[in-house]
């Protein structure tokens, strides 16, 4: 880690520049603002007040996944301060960006806040505790090893004066001046007093009375509203618009063209679009809806999901590109004893060959409950930003880039996020707001209509996949070739959970390809694994069945020696009531997918009515993520990811026609609702607690669709190879 993160020098240097930080519509200050009172900043991560209240910084965005609670917990564990004394404060994005990434990263995704970032976050707490001890040792004139820091209190026995005691708050100013010779080590599992306990998230009560502030809730003096429209066929460009036709409408102030600089923009570049600015968002939206606009649709106009599917099928009919070990982003896990070369001969000479049919998944949108929104106030000497982002530093840099301003003059204020799921990464809404505010000289709030949100989202890509396998005398595969086709913008997604599947097939070959695609693509809760798991885990069932194996026993056999997987599979066998023979239109199915370092298994019980309607009666999850620091939030996230993916499995699916997404609101892009929710969802955390940290915000999604599809197979004898399942003929 960077030692400079923990020194006070950075703070002293820049504190004057953040003192003017705005406090508009905010209930939570940044550390600098907290320290502007009489609290002392020990290091960039925390301040301690004279009342022994500790304010801990959260650089990651809170979107319901618990970053706001997990980060303070990790710091408090090391600092050793009662949880009631802990307050959460937001990281100052400006300070982070202009001080060599002070908090290492502000990116919030990949289920990584705890799993990947705990070493330096816990270090910040350990370092502060150590400096408090040094400060007490000096003031009391006792050896350091006699000073104990526990639950916010420093104590020591002194030879002459007896027992000495003081709060952290009393030593905070001294501690801030201490420089450590060496950083203390962070605690190991087993030494924890707070981590591992069920702790309620700190953001819960703010979200039961409307107090939590999202970008859409921010107001700035003199602010106006903008509705935006980019080309409905992504990559297309604005040719002309007729503002004269709408400028007399109520409240309308201006039209602003948003210019695309790059020929083919990436998802965070400003895309060619036009905005109407008005006194109310409703007025802006109404005027934009009737303003004549001419577009050049570009190359995408001839692309549809049907044309992409036809292209994928023709690619699957030939050999694809071989996934090689050195392609770390695609071939992770290929070191599990893979032999590519022998596969074609073994398949050609197989005595028992299994040939898979083509499976597929469609595009899906994030459709976060808060449509993308940003407020930007561009002034001569500073820019203030509130936006939909999963990375405050990245978005600050994007606004600075858009306006060609020094990052020192751009202030991005973290807010709550109305859902993220990856959608808050590939977003140009703050560039739009910045460009509009600069153009009209007033602060502006851009809100995307739901239709604009879904039409312009960075979508989860489609995938098409199939396989062939040669089985040996024991019915187990001796050679396997998979061929998955994704799309050209993020082809690596088509291999996540495929090339690195854990099944011990001695000879494996993984091929991939990509179809033409102009639709923007982005991360989407368990990217790649979410769609690919549907294919791999139905393949596993088909191979088991072809070889005469029970699907659960097959997986146990095929992952022999892989302890993390065995723990999940054996728990499923022991606890789930597993059977493939329920009868009466009922079925049980299972699937296991590893993503974000966590192995998640799902057992689904379904029933199918005589008219072919599918009911999900029960979902059981068996999760092995290694350490779990907060089982309550772990279960919340397991339920959440499961229902997220079940919604796409049963109902979702974007339709792409003439280059544009056509189902762009909740009447046509159907998602999970209360009556569709399974009556029983059980989450079992099969904790291994053995020096390993997996993520928990996403992994129960991927095994859900194949577990349900496998269950439908055992209920009906019909295998469904695409989603949404509710449209399948049963």
């Amino acid at each position, binding site marked *: 880690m960077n030692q400079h993160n923990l020194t006070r020098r950075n703070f002293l240097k820049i504190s004057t520049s953040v003192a003017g930080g705005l406090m508009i519509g905010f209930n939570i200050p940044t550390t600098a603002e907290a320290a502007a009172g009489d609290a002392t900043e020990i290091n960039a991560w925390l301040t301690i007040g004279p009342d022994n209240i500790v304010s801990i910084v959260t650089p990651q965005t809170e979107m319901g996944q618990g970053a706001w609670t997990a980060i303070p917990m990790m710091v408090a564990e090391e600092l050793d301060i009662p949880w009631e004394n802990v307050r959460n404060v937001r990281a100052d994005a400006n300070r982070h960006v202009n001080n060599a990434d002070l908090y290492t990263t502000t990116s919030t995704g990949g289920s990584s806040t705890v799993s990947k970032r705990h070493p330096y976050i816990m270090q910040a707490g350990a370092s502060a505790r150590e400096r408090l001890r040094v400060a007490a040792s000096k003031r009391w004139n006792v050896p350091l090893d006699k000073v104990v820091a526990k639950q916010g209190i420093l104590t020591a026995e002194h030879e002459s004066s007896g027992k000495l005691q003081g709060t952290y708050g009393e030593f905070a100013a001294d501690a801030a001046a201490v420089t450590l010779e060496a950083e203390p080590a962070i605690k190991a599992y087993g030494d924890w007093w707070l981590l591992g306990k069920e702790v309620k998230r700190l953001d819960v009560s703010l979200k039961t009375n409307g107090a939590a502030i999202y970008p859409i809730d921010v107001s700035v003096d003199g602010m106006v509203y903008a509705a935006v429209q980019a080309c409905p066929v992504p990559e297309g460009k604005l040719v002309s618009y007729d503002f004269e036709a709408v400028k007399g409408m109520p409240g309308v102030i201006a039209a602003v063209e948003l210019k695309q600089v790059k020929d083919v923009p990436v998802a965070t570049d400003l895309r060619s679009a036009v905005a109407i600015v008005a006194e109310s968002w409703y007025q802006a939206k109404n005027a934009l809806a009737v303003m004549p606009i001419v577009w050049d649709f570009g190359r995408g106009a001839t692309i549809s999901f049907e044309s992409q599917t036809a292209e994928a099928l023709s690619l699957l009919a030939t050999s694809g590109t071989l996934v090689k070990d050195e392609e770390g982003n695609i071939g992770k896990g290929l070191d599990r004893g893979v032999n590519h070369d022998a596969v074609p001969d073994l398949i050609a000479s197989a005595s028992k060959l299994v040939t898979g049919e083509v499976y597929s998944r469609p595009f899906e949108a994030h459709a976060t*409950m*808060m449509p993308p929104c940003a407020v930007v106030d561009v002034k001569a000497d500073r820019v203030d930003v509130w936006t939909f982002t999963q990375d405050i530093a990245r978005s600050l840099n994007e606004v600075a880039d858009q306006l060609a301003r020094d990052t020192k003059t751009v202030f991005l204020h973290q807010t709550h996020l109305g*859902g993220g799921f990856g959608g808050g990464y590939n977003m140009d809404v703050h560039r739009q707001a910045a460009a509009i505010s600069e153009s009209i000289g007033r602060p502006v709030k851009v809100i995307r209509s739901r239709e604009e949100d879904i039409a312009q989202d960075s979508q989860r890509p489609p995938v098409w996949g199939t396989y062939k396998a040669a089985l040996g005398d024991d019915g187990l595969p001796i050679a396997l070739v998979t061929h998955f086709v994704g799309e050209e913008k993020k082809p690596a997604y088509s291999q996540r959970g495929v090339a690195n599947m854990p099944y011990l097939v001695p000879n494996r070959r993984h091929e991939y390809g990509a179809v033409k695609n102009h639709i923007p693509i982005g991360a989407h809760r368990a990217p790649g694994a979410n769609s690919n798991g549907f294919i791999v885990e139905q393949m596993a069932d088909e191979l088991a069945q072809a070889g005469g194996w029970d699907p659960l026993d097959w997986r146990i056999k095929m992952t022999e020696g892989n302890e993390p997987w065995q723990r999940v599979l054996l728990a499923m066998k022991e606890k789930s009531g597993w059977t493939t023979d329920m009868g009466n239109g009922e079925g049980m199915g299972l699937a296991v997918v590893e993503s974000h370092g966590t192995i998640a298994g799902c057992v689904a019980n379904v029933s199918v009515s005589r008219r072919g309607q599918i009911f999900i009666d029960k979902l059981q999850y068996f999760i092995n993520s290694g350490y779990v620091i907060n089982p309550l939030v772990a279960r919340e996230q397991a339920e959440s990811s499961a229902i997220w993916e079940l919604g796409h499995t049963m109902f979702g699916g974007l339709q792409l026609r003439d280059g544009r997404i056509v189902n762009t609101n909740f009447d046509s892009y159907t998602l999970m609702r209360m009556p569709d929710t399974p009556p029983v969802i059980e989450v079992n955390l099969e904790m291994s607690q053995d020096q390993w940290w997996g993520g928990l915000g996403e992994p129960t999604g991927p095994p859900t669709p194949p577990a349900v599809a496998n269950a439908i197979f055992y209920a009906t004898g019909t295998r469904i190879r695409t989603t949404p399942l509710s449209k399948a003929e049963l």
Partner: protein
Amino acid sequence: MAITLNINGQDHEIDVDPQMPLLWAIREKAGLTGTKFGCGIAQCGACTVIVDGNAVRSCNTPVATAVGKAIRTIEGVSANNDHPVQVAWQELTVPQCGYCQSGQIMSAVALLENSPSPTDNEIDKAMAGNICRCGTYPRIRAAIHRAAELTK
């Protein structure tokens, strides 16, 4: 047009287009931002408020139709965030991203005022208009039962 809206027992004099959806009058004119915009076509329920005792989607309700009626928003559910529905929501840690929860809570409050001990089926029916992308449905269902218990 100048109109008076009675929101949470307080009169707000506002000047608006009578066709403007109630949602935008509440958010932009009355300055109460707890009520959210989600879809604009009454499909997601994020904008749910209670008008004369009934849960209403404010995003497609013209503001003129709410004049002379009692409008309740999330800010008016309780003064101290301690209505039984809010308490149950906190106990069962229902909200995740939280964006849909104002609407969920208003639908639940209206349901419990009309049916103090709802069955699962009644809950499904009353809550079907409120989408939650975080998938907090099982916790919402349990929290409505809990709120019913707390109200007894």
